[in-house]
C-alpha cells in the first residue's frame, strides 16, 4: 500500500545545495509573511512567486506549476477587485482569506515542498554538519524528512478504514478530525519509537564522531541565488 507516496530521491533538473535550499526557504518566510503597502513589497512578492514557479519546474512538476500559476493569477486579479468592494460580507471575508493564502503562503509552501522532495536525509545531515549545527537539532529535523512519506502512508490507510466503517461527515467535523488524528498519532508515535531504537542500535549518537559519505558542494548557481536573495532581503528590510 506504500506505492502512492512521492519519492524523496527524485532528481531535480538543477541540483542545488541543501544549504541554498534552506536559505531560500528562510528568506521566503521573511519576505512573504509581513505585509506592507509599498511598491517594493508588491514587486518582491511577485518576483518570489515567480521563483517558486521556477522551482516547481526544476523538480519536474510542470502540472502542479501550471495549476499554481493559474491560481496565483486568479488570486492576484481577485485581490485587485476586492479593493473596489467596500463593506464586510461573509463571502468577501472568505475570498480575501483565500486570496491571502494563495498570494502569501503558497509560494513558500512550494519552496518547502521542493526542498523536502529533492533532498536526501543524508544530504540534509551533511549540510547541517558542515554548518557545525549540533546533532541535537539536526537529528529531529532529519526525522521529519523521514516522516513525511510515513504520515502520508498512514493517512491513506486510516482513510480507507474510515470508509469501511462508514464514518462520514454525519458524525460532525470535530469527530471526523478526532477519528483521523487519534489513530494517526498513535501509529506515528509507535513508528517514531521503533525508528529511533533502530537508528540508535545502528550507532547514531548525538555527540559521537561521524563520517559523511554524501558529498555536497556549493556551486556557482548556489552562490548567485544566495547573493540575489540576500540583496532582496536587505532591500526589503532597509528600504
Amino acid at each position, binding site marked *: *500500500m*506504500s*506505492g502512492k*507516496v512521492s*519519492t*524523496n*530521491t527524485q532528481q531535480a533538473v538543477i541540483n542545488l545545495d541543501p544549504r541554498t535550499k534552506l536559505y531560500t526557504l528562510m528568506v521566503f518566510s521573511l519576505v512573504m509573511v509581513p505585509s506592507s503597502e509599498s511598491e517594493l513589497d508588491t514587486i518582491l512578492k511577485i518576483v518570489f512567486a515567480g521563483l517558486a514557479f521556477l522551482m516547481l519546474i526544476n523538480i519536474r512538476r510542470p502540472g502542479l506549476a501550471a495549476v499554481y500559476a493559474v491560481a496565483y493569477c486568479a488570486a492576484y486579479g481577485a485581490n485587485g477587485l476586492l479593493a473596489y468592494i467596500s463593506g464586510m460580507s461573509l463571502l468577501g471575508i472568505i475570498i480575501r482569506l483565500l486570496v491571502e493564502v494563495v498570494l502569501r503562503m503558497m509560494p513558500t509552501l512550494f519552496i518547502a515542498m521542493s526542498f523536502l522532495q529533492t533532498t*536526501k*536525509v*543524508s544530504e540534509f545531515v551533511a549540510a547541517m554538519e558542515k554548518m557545525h549545527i549540533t546533532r541535537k537539532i539536526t537529528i529531529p529535523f*532529519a*526525522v521529519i*524528512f*523521514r516522516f513525511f*512519506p510515513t504520515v502520508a*502512508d*498512514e493517512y491513506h*490507510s*486510516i482513510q*480507507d*478504514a*474510515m*470508509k*469501511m*466503517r*462508514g*464514518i462520514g461527515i454525519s*458524525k460532525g467535523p470535530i469527530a471526523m478530525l*478526532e*477519528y483521523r488524528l*487519534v*489513530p494517526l498519532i*498513535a*501509529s506515528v508515535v*509507535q*513508528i517514531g519509537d*521503533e*525508528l*529511533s*531504537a*533502530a*537508528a*540508535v*542500535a*545502528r*550507532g*547514531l*549518537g548525538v555527540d*559521537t*564522531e*561521524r*563520517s*559523511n*559519505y*554524501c558529498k555536497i558542494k556549493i556551486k556557482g548557481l548556489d552562490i548567485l541565488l544566495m547573493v540575489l536573495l540576500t540583496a532582496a532581503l536587505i532591500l526589503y528590510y532597509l528600504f
Partner: protein
Amino acid sequence: MIELKNVSFRYKDSEQDNSLTNVNLSIHDGEVVLICGGSGCGKTTITRLLNGLIPSFYEGQLTGEVLLNGENISKQPIHKVARKVGSVFQNPRTQFFNIDSTSELIFRCENLAVPVEQISQYLENAINEFGIGELVGRNLFHLSGGEKQKIACASVSIPMPDIFVLDEPTSNLDWRSIWMLKDIIMRWKAQGKTVIVAEHRLSYLKGVADRVVYMNDGEIKEDMPADTFWSLSADEIKRRGLRSISPVSFGSNARTPHSSDCYSVKDLSFHYKDGVGIEIPALSIPKGAIVGIIGENGAGKTTFARCLCGLEKRARGLFSFGSRTYSNRQRLKICYLVMQDVNHQLFTESVEDEISISVEHTDDAQREKIVDEILHDMDLIALKSIHPLSLSGGQKQRVAIGSAIASKKEIMVFDEPTSGLDYRHMLEVSNCLKKLSAIGKTSLIITHDPELIAECCDYFIFIEDGTVKWYGPFDTQNGQRVQQFFGSEEGGAL
C-alpha cells in the same frame, strides 16, 4: 563470548513484573542460538540487552551483568556496542532512518565514523555479497518487506560486527524472503559470526541454529542442542506454545464449507497507474467459508482484497449473491478489511464505544443489547471500558472484528492476521474465524501462515501474476496443491 549473569530486568513504568528473572546464559563465539517462547516470554528483552538498547534506550531496573568478552555492555555507551553488535528488527517498515536505500546501506558506516574512501569499498562489497545491485538508489518506501529486510541485513554487516542479533526478523515476510534470510544467516555462520535469533517462526532455522533456548515468563526454561530440539514431537512443541518446527501437513484435515450459496465474481479487473493489477474472469466464494488467499508477495492478493471490499473505485466487474448484484460502493457496506496494522481502524476511547458507534439502532436499549452480545462473542466483556489502543495486538484485532460485526458486515477480509503471533495467539485467531463462520460470516484471509491455514481454512483462492490460478474447497487435491506451494518455497525440504 557473551555471558548473562543473574540478569533481571523490569521495564520502567511497566505494570508487569520482571520481564526477565535471573537469567543465566553464555554463548560462545561462532554459535547460532535460537531463542524461542510465547509472546511476552522475554526473548525480545534479551536481544535488547545484547545490542545495548537496554539500558540506553529502554529504561528500567537492571540487575546482574551482561558481558561481551568480559566487558559489561550495559555500562558502555551504545554507539560502542553498535560497532560490535549488528541488529535486525521485526518491522522492516520502521527500521530504516533514510528514505533512499543507498544512504541506508552506509548509515551504520557513517555513524561509526568509517573514512569515506573505505565506505565506498564496503558498499561495493556488500552489493556484490548480498546481490542487491538492483536495490541500490531506490526509494525504500517502494520496496517489498523482504527487500527492506535484505537492505537491513546488508547495512548492519558493514563494517562487519562480531555478533548479529535478530529480533523476529521474519514476522512480516513471505516464504521466499524467509529462505533468503536463512541464506544470509548461513553465510554469517560460515564466516564464524555469532548469531542470536529471537523467533516465533522456527522451521526455517533447522540446520542453521546450533542451540535452542526456550523461555517462558521471563525465565530460561530449557537450553538444548539443536538436534535434541528438532527431534521433539509435534505435541511437545505445542505444549510449549511454539510454532511448528516441521513443514505443516495438509493431507488429513480436508473439509468443505457448509453452505452451497456462493458469492460470485465475474470479470473483475483493476490496474494501477503503472499497469500492474489484477484480471479475474470468474470466481465463486461460498457464504460462511473461511477462505485462504494464498500466493507469493506481489501476486496481487492485497489488490484483489481491496477491489473486493470496494476500496478501489476504478475496479470493474460483477459481484453478486443470488440475484442481487453489488457495486463497488455497495460492497464497501458489506465488506470489511481487517488491516495488518489494526491501529488504523480504532478511533474511539473505549472498546464499548468502538463497537457501539457502528451499531445502527437508534433505540438505546436495543443498541446496548447488540453491543453486549458482540462483546461477549468476541471475549471482550472484561475489556469493555479500556482504551482500544492500550490493548494487545490480538485483542485489538478482536475489537476491529467486533466493530465490523456491529456494522453488519457480511464479508471480512484479513491481511496477515497472524504475522508475529505465537502458537496460542494463532489459535485464538483461528477460533475467532471459526466463530465468524458459525454465525454465517464469510472470512477471506491473506496469509503466509501454513499453520493457520491447516487449522481453519475450508476454501482456497490461489493468486499468481494478478489472476486466480485456481480456487475451490479444501479437498484432497487442493490440499496437495497448498502443500506443494508451501513445500516448493522451502526448496523441496519436505
